[in-house]
């Protein structure tokens, strides 16, 4: 965060992240843990899609500002998800390790993403509620991991309650993002200083669509 105070050296790249998954798997809790490092035992279900941001340093000179769209998992809001994954750079599909059905739902989301979302989107599969693994695990880690490997996804088992693997998950996504092009673009703009003809790309480094 200290690097933020010296903006000349650090390039911040905006990236859009969307969370998908069945209802009550803990999407909002994951985001809350990641953004505010809080946990709420009795969280109300999300309405529509919530928006949060968090900046994540990757190395000394680069940080990624994640614009997180936390969509509601309820069936009613199904039509809302395409609005957000259509131009997303990365997606986290969450399932609940205590609910086998939620993994099926997650798989269907992944299929939909692979079909509809822009090419090159980074998808992560997250099995949430790891804190309940001892008593109520319904999905074996190996099964989910195998599926993730097969579909070329990042895979983590997380717990929003204990914060286990939450930051790792987001950091891994940020690291996997194809940032080179944008980085070069942004760096170039910064290095050349004031250049009116190329001011536009510099002003919008996020250019939210990477495809």
């Amino acid at each position: 965060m200290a690097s933020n105070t010296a903006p000349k050296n650090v390039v911040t790249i905006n990236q859009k992240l969307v969370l998908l998954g069945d209802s009550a798997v803990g999407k909002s809790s994951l985001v809350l843990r990641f953004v505010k490092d809080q946990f709420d035992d009795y969280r109300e279900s999300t309405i529509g899609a919530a928006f949060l941001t968090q900046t994540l340093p990757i190395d000394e000179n680069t940080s990624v500002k994640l614009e997180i769209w936390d969509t509601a998992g309820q069936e009613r809001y199904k039509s809302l998800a395409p609005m957000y994954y259509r131009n997303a750079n990365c997606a986290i599909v969450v399932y609940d390790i205590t609910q086998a059905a939620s993994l099926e739902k997650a798989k269907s989301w992944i299929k939909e993403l692979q079909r509809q979302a822009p090419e090159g989107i980074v998808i992560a599969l997250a099995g949430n509620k790891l804190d309940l693994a001892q008593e109520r695990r319904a999905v074996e880690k190996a099964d989910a991991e195998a599926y993730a490997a097969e579909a070329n996804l990042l895979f983590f088992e997380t717990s929003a309650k204990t914060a286990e693997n939450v930051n790792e998950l987001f950091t891994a996504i940020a690291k996997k993002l194809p940032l080179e092009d944008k980085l070069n673009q942004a760096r170039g703009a910064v290095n050349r200083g004031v250049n009116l003809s190329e001011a536009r790309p510099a002003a919008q480094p996020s250019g939210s669509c990477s495809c």
Partner: protein
Amino acid sequence: MQNGKRRIGVRISSNLSNHSGTNLSTSAQSDSSNIVKATECPICGLELPNLSALNDHLDVTHFNDNEKIHKRQDSINSWLTRTLNGASALQMKAAQRLWRMEPYEQNGDSSGAVGLEATKLTDSLVVKNHWQPEVPDMVCHDPMCDKLLNFINGHIHCRKCGYIFCNFHSMYQIKLSIHATYDSENGFWCRVCRECYEGRPGYNDSNGLIRSRFQTFETFRKPLADKRRIEFLRLSKRMKKLEELWTSENVSMLDALLLNKAKRLEQSIVHWQDDSVVQICPECNNSFTLTRRRRHCRLCGRVICRFCVLEISLPQHPQPLLICMSCNQNYFRNVLYQTERSKSLGYIRHIEHLQVFRQAMVNYYRLYEDSLSELLSGEIITEATLKIVKDRRKKFLELCVKYDGTMKKIANHPSSNDAEEQFKQNVVNEAKRYLQETILRLQAIPYHLQVGQAWTSESERELEKKKEQVEKKQEELMQTRIVLEEQVFLVENMIEDAKAKRKFSEVETLLSSLAPLHEEIHSITEKIHDLDLFDI
């Protein structure tokens, strides 16, 4: 002594503050003679020798009056509660009666069965295909009942709605036709649920049955009304003659001075009753005397006393005209009524128009319905038949427009007072209600009706199916649109929030996220619109 009296007086006045007509307090302050006079108990009217006696009397006799009144009120209250409880228990009793199979009401005389047994006999007559299928572990369909349906609690189909209820919640009987619809005249007594029992037409109708007795009244009233009308006509004829009496050519104003001549003239219109025949005035039943002189009514010629005569001045007459009370009633009141009536208010005409339009609308509606159903049931649709239907529909709609216009005219007519305003309002409201009802009921000509196409039940079913699909799709789209609109609202709130927190980079992102939402809403709206068009 003086002090004591004043005290008593004041006390009485405070005791009797509710009773009017006493001036005890003032009299106590004035002199003692007045006090003595006023020692009559204002409650029971008992005469008492002096104030102290009255005071004692009030203390002893009337002290408990208030309590007595309270007691009586209490007893009335308890009576009311008792009666109410009894009334609410009545329903239970009725239900129990039904359950004990006591004679309730029977379906026909031949059956011989009673109570619920009787309803069982009708089972074969009333249709059952709407009955809810039985599955194990069902509970009573009554929303307030959670009894399991089994042998003990019973499982009875309501014959009307077809849902299954427990014994207790199906203990009602109404008459149903064989199509399981309510038919109070020719139906059979059937066992139904409470909802069907209370939902039948007329159950909550506090007005009861309305039976017009106007016909009877009219026949009863007709002879009298006719007689009155004839009398009125006769009198008005005479009146006309009387008016013209002094204006005709062969009569000069000079004749008016000659009493005989005037009398003869007036007698030429109606025969005057002979004085000697009448001994008492027919109006007031007093016998004639020197002061109570005989007079002749100029309209009917009867003899009446001078106190029962009205003097009416006519413009052309030298003297006022004498008219008896009954002629006044029969003629002048009637004239007044007629003139008032003919002075019709501007919008009354419109109200009459409304009625005419309404009648025509009813007729055309029926014609349209008939021709449409004929068209749908017929084999081949020809240009001519289709045209007839279309024409009738058009005509009906034109009538509706006229009706609406007239209604607005009435509403815009200025009214002179509140009652009139109220009346007009009522008329307009009723007209509006009628118009809405009819328009809503109006069936559209099916869009797929085409010349030369045979109308079969199959194609109907197909279309029905298609329509259902379209409706479902539409419903889904609507739902999606609502979700999207909600999201727009949420995002707008987020933008406000971000602005307030001065997070302008977030504002930018959020703003850009609004655009696809709006686009999507737009495209969905268009889709819904397209489906609407398809529907038409």
